[in-house]
């Protein structure tokens, strides 16, 4: 059975690329455009991995991550944070809040795919 990936980003221009890429890699893909929608989609779609943008309206990626990590049922959900914030402090914050990986934009799609595959293979 194909792994399920939830893409959370408010920018359609990155969502379209990620969605295309992940589908090509054979994953089942769902998209959420803000933090609240992301939480709702996690419940309905039940993804294995989540590509989560930090800067979003309504709820930030940090908040979403925190909320998910507070829920023991979602312990198995892998979270990859995608962000334009490249500062060390913010990377540290993302990881401290429970993200499994932290990818800074602009990123190589190849590396991202490789990372996603590796994480799902664990």
């Amino acid at each position, binding site marked *: 059975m194909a792994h399920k990936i939830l893409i959370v980003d408010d*920018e359609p*221009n*990155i969502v*379209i*690329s*990620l969605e*295309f*890429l992940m589908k*090509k890699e054979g994953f089942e893909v769902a998209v959420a455009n803000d933090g609240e929608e992301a939480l709702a989609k996690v419940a309905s779609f039940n993804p294995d991995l989540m590509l989560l943008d930090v*800067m979003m309206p309504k709820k930030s990626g940090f908040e979403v991550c925190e909320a998910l990590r507070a829920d023991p049922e979602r312990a198995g959900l892998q979270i990859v944070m*995608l962000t*334009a*914030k*490249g500062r060390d402090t913010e990377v540290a914050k993302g990881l401290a809040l429970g993200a499994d990986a932290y990818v*800074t*934009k*602009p*990123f*190589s*799609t*190849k590396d991202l795919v490789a990372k996603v595959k590796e994480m799902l293979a664990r």
Partner: protein
Amino acid sequence: MKAKHRFILAVVVLGLLMTGPFVVTSLLVWLDMKDAERVMLTELLLSRLPVGTMMTLFGFVVGVLVLHRLFKQYVEGLLRMAETLRLMLGANRNFRVTIEGPPEVQQLARAANDLAQQRDALMDDVEAQIATAKASVEEEKNRLAALMSELAQAVVVCNLDGRILLYNNRARLQFKALAQGPTSVSGGALIGLGRSIFSILEKNQVQHAQEVIRQRVATGKTAMANFITTTRGGQLLRIQMVPVLAAPGEGEAAMSGYVLTVENITRSIEQEAHRDQVLHLMTEGSRSALGNIRAAVTNLIDYPDMEPELRERFLRVIEEEVAKRGQSVDQTMAEFSHSMKTRWPLEDILGIDVIAAAQRRIEDKLKLPIKTEELDDALWVKADSFSLVFALVFLASKLQDHYEPRELRFRLTSAGKLAYLDLIWAGPAMSSETFYTWEMESMHAAGETSPLSLRDVIDRHGGEIWYQREKAAHRAFFRFVLPVATPEIGHDEESARGSNRPEYYDFDLFKFEDKSIDLDRKLSELTYTVFDTETTGLEPSNGDEIIQIGAARIVNNRLLRQEIFNQLVDPECPLKPESIPIHGITEDMVRGQPNIDVVLPAFHEFCEDTVLIAHNAAFDMRFLQLKEERTGVKFSQPVLDTLLLSAVVQPNQESHKLDVILERLGIHIESRHNALEDSLATAEVFLKLVPLLEEKGIVTVRQALEASEKTFFARVKY
């Protein structure tokens, strides 16, 4: 033994000397004789006895007379001289011994007089030296104060209690600018000699900084501490503290006070935040866009066989993102070009000061006469004056080398936000290539060189320069275009209040300890607020209102003309036409001014910890008291009344009106019947009254209050 007794003794001795040897010799001869010889001798002697006795008596009397004379001259004369000398030693330095008596005594007297002369000369010399030393200390103090007042930094010196001993003009203006509300209402209250710095700065922070300094001193580091604090108005201040250490030789160098350098960094912090924002926009804004583009491009490359529709979509993503980035770069440049351009620290300087400096150097170094034409003497420019002056000298020297002009002229004009500084000369036209090379080469003039080129200097100023001909006048000029500066703080505000050097310092406050008002302290030691009010009329209880409060401070027996309170008050009722000629305040002047609810608390703050003084204080105090309930401020400090004090000093004078007292005490005041002027006049009166009261044994505030109460005038009530 007294001199008289000694004289009697001397007489007795003389008597014995005259009779003794004869009597003893006779006795010895008598004992040696036979009886017949004795009878013969007795006969012989007895017949001659009267003559012998007579001679002896005569000799004795002569001897006594001689003795008496000698005694008068030597003993009594010397005693007199001793008394005179005592007098010279103590009461009257100028007294001298009278030269009289025998030569030896006269010599002694002369020697004593010479000694006295020498002593006087020495004493005069010592006094003169002390006076010189005092004057030089005073001069040093004044020089320090003058120096401080010219500093561009705000400097405040405090003792360990946090009392302000010295501050400079910049500090005054800075804290005034920080004050909220109408500046003159509360601005004056913040800074002042003897006031507490803690009304401006957080006490904890200041104490913490002191602690830091102590630790640094203990570990041998530079004694200094920095902190940043926020004022009530939300401004950011960076404060540097340096200790004032007690004079060496007093054991361990203990801190007796500290110097604070205050810098308002609100604006530079804002600028920094602004720059951060730009940086943020340029980095993180780009990251996201680049990420979008990169992902789209990779997809296009990696999956060349995707459906055309999707392909079209990815291409649009790229186009959109690139366009957005382009726009954002443009926008950033437009918004922040100003803060990116001028990174070189430029100072605000009067244009004519730059010209004066350049003129001096050119005349001095190049021996080239300079004249000036139209000069806008109120024009401030933003400039690095050193490099700018150098550039002017450089151009002058270039002109001298190439065209040998007889003289150069300066002109300074302005157009909008730009200042034009022209260097004019008469002579042939020069080619633009020549000027171009001048612009680009490293500057050198009169044996000095600079690593900068003229172009560098111009860029540094964010300015321009060009060469222009005035054909009709057969002359040409270089025009420097510089940014006009608007000085932050009014520079000529000071001149309004007397041109005397400001009284921004009082080092005696180093010893200032007591904070609350102690009625048993000397009148000359206390801090006073001398005030006066102008009112709509003379009946406070019948609805008359305050329309102006003026006040000044007296600290350590000195009137501080800079630390004043001067505020018009909107009485919220019409003025009485008949009162307008008296106080000169019109309806127009009071409308729009703060009302008493605003002014009275500010005035209350201004008076904090001081004794109040007013002329006919009961009148003014009645007005203040009537407002206590409404404004919630109570003036509970002791109040001295110069009218009553004048009556104490001169009980037999009929009038104690302010004008009359001023005349009586020889005080000249330029204008009167303005609350501020009258309070200054009252202060002068008080300062003159203090020594007169002291003569009457009235030294402390308590004594002054008690004496005031007993005067007749004290019984008049409002």
